[in-house]
């Protein structure tokens, strides 16, 4: 499958700091890739470079097979959607008027506005003035704006950081649907669960470097010594290793009718990140 994003030896330095140190990765068409890392790890810098807001110091960056410096064009902007933590809204305008502006800039039909408002669960509030919305609702308006023109490539910087679990689930379902329709999604997040739910591959970014890049399943499978918890009758839990002795313990507990439930103690992506970098997200 063709690559939508190709990044080779990307370096970005600011006056007194190197934000990205030789970063390499590709993103395939239709893929959802997640960049995980703590604040200051370089996630937002990557998004800014990929959306032509920042020039790389060195390295090669191609999006849709074109070098990034050629992409500051209306045609490119129509193909991408962006949600960042500082995507501003017009506070004195209604939700609908905010989207109507972008509908006209992207030349989309007015009926599409209601479609995206429904997707972010805000259709009934469309006449509300943005100033009076909660942070989570503003986040959903910004997301609606980012997907208004059905972009081929969607950049999301912490898309659900201000949302409650119900709306997070709503947004996740919307993003999955968008991805199924062919939109490639590049997202950054602190939320490991979000990465697990949405991403085909995840990259651990730390100090401007990609430490690991793989599918969530493969990342977990790299971990040796995964244990298994057996919950037995009488509120007892026994932890066994994935070896012959563990298998025997499981067999015995089934034979004696003691076993209630069995759980594989696979590490979460968060555990792997902490082990890898020594830092929490």
């Amino acid at each position, binding site marked *: 499958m063709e690559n939508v994003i190709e990044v080779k030896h990307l370096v970005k330095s600011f006056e007194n700091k190197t934000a990205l140190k030789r970063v390499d990765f590709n993103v395939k068409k239709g893929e959802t890739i997640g960049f995980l890392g703590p604040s200051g790890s370089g996630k937002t810098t990557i998004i800014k470079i990929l*959306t032509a807001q920042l*020039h790389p110091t060195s390295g090669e960056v191609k999006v849709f097979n074109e070098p990034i410096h050629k992409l500051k064009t*209306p045609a490119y902007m129509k193909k991408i959607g*962006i949600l960042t933590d500082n*995507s*501003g809204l017009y*506070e004195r305008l209604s939700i609908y*008027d905010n989207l109507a*502006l972008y509908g006209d800039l992207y*030349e989309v039909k007015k009926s599409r506005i209601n479609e995206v408002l429904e997707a972010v669960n805000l259709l009934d509030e469309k006449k509300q003035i943005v100033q009076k919305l909660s942070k989570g609702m503003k986040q959903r308006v910004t997301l609606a704006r980012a997907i208004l023109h059905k972009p081929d490539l969607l950049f999301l910087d912490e898309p659900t950081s201000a949302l409650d679990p119900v709306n997070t689930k709503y947004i996740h379902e919307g993003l999955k649907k968008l991805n199924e329709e062919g939109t490639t999604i590049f997202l950054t997040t602190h939320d490991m669960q979000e990465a697990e739910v949405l991403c085909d591959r995840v990259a651990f970014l730390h100090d401007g470097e990609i430490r690991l890049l793989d599918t969530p399943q493969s990342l977990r499978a790299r971990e040796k010594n995964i244990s298994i918890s057996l919950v037995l009758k009488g509120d007892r839990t026994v932890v066994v290793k994935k070896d012959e002795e563990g298998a025997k313990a499981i067999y015995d507990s089934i034979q004696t009718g003691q076993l209630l439930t069995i759980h594989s103690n696979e590490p979460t992506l968060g555990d792997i990140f902490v082990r890898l970098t020594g830092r929490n997200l």
Partner: protein
Amino acid sequence: MTFSTKRVNAIFIKDWKDLQRNSYILFTAAIPLFFAAWLGRIGADSAILASYPVNLALVIAGAFIQAAMVAEEKEKNTLRGLLLSPANTLEILVGKSALSAVMTIVIITGSILLSGYHVPSLPVFAVSILLGLIIYLAIGTILGLLSRTVMESSIIGMPVLVVFGMASMVKTTIENEVLVKVIDYLPSEQLNHIWVRLGEGEGLSAVSGNMAVLLLWAAASFFATMLIYRKNSMDYS
């Protein structure tokens, strides 16, 4: 470079809806009208005095309000949204200037009516206003781009208001010849020259030199705006 009037119109409509709820801009826009009404009441009869409200309208509505509107887009991070949309530099600049331009024309018309200023030779007067509009909108846009907040645009806009709006008024009290010469080449002074000459019954040929100076100001300020816009509107570094 393509130019979409639909995108320009979208930005204009957005600004128009926003203006209706923006008390700061509405109050600022009323200042030249109050000044014109006051001059009308005291019966200012000299051409220079009578044209002050027009100049003030250009400075306040053209530059000051434009600066505040652009600065607010930066302060609230909404300019980034426009820049990341398919709208190009020219469409955004024209779209962002359209409402200020319309407001300035409305305020100038109101100021003329309230102050009782008799407009001499409407076509030449209109051309001078058009050139003045381009210059002050460009200055306002530059001020807005250089400011981080609306408050900051008011602070750095104040010296501009004094120099471009009031230098002609205080010129007679200044003894430094170099300073007087500099003031002579300011757009406000060029506009005054044009309006006084027209008021004396002279035609376009008599004011062509002043028009040429205004044209130079308009071209220089337009290109300066494009340059500063490209440098300041994104994080390029």
